[in-house]
């Protein structure tokens, strides 16, 4: 049963600390998305990659967020330093493209910055 795997599921950290979230996309998928979900803003696209290359990270605060794909089986989202306003659920999704194709979501990482 192929699925997107995200770790950790939950993370509580103190303001100022570095946070790294990891995602293992479905094998063979060439597009990876990072989303942030909050009650106030809903679902926001932070960044997405195609064939491991970042195509759009305009939704991401550049000063503290960074997203990478060191290889085809791992995507990372890093926040340094973290702030309370970063508290949210972060979703990774993968697919075989965009537009008309389906995105498969992981279960998310719930981040709480205190």
């Amino acid at each position, binding site marked *: 049963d192929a699925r*997107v795997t995200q770790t950790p599921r939950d993370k509580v950290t103190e303001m100022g600390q570095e946070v790294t979230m990891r995602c293992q996309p479905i094998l063979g998928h060439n597009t990876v*998305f990072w989303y942030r979900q909050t009650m106030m803003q809903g*679902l926001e696209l932070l960044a997405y990659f195609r064939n491991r290359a970042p195509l759009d990270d305009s939704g991401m605060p550049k000063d503290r967020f960074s997203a990478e794909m060191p290889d085809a089986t791992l995507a990372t989202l890093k926040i340094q330093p973290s702030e309370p306003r970063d508290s949210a659920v972060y979703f990774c999704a993968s697919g075989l493209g*965009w*537009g*008309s194709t389906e995105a498969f979501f992981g*279960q998310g990482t719930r981040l709480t910055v205190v």
Partner: protein
Amino acid sequence: AQSVTQLDSQVPVFEEAPVELRCNYSSSVSVYLFWYVQYPNQGLQLLLKYLSGSTLVKGINGFEAEFNKSQTSFHLRKPSVHISDTAEYFCAVPNAGNNRKLIWGLGTSLAVNP
């Protein structure tokens, strides 16, 4: 630019009653439309999609949606809901242009009561 409006943020309904979740979109190009469902503490999952052809689209779990071009709507319906349908439902449309990332509605929370 594309946009998606989900007209109801919350929809309470009794079990076995019919339900309609409304979605309107704006688009100046050919349209693909999606409905995703998010069960509590889970990632999003594709419910159904419209790409072309028949305007009535059937999805999983007994849901269906009708694409209405003249009204720019893609409302989601189910004739008889179950407690297990309690979830957040998101309508989405790909952005026009080269990136074609999904534009998401803010979601409709469906609460099915016994």
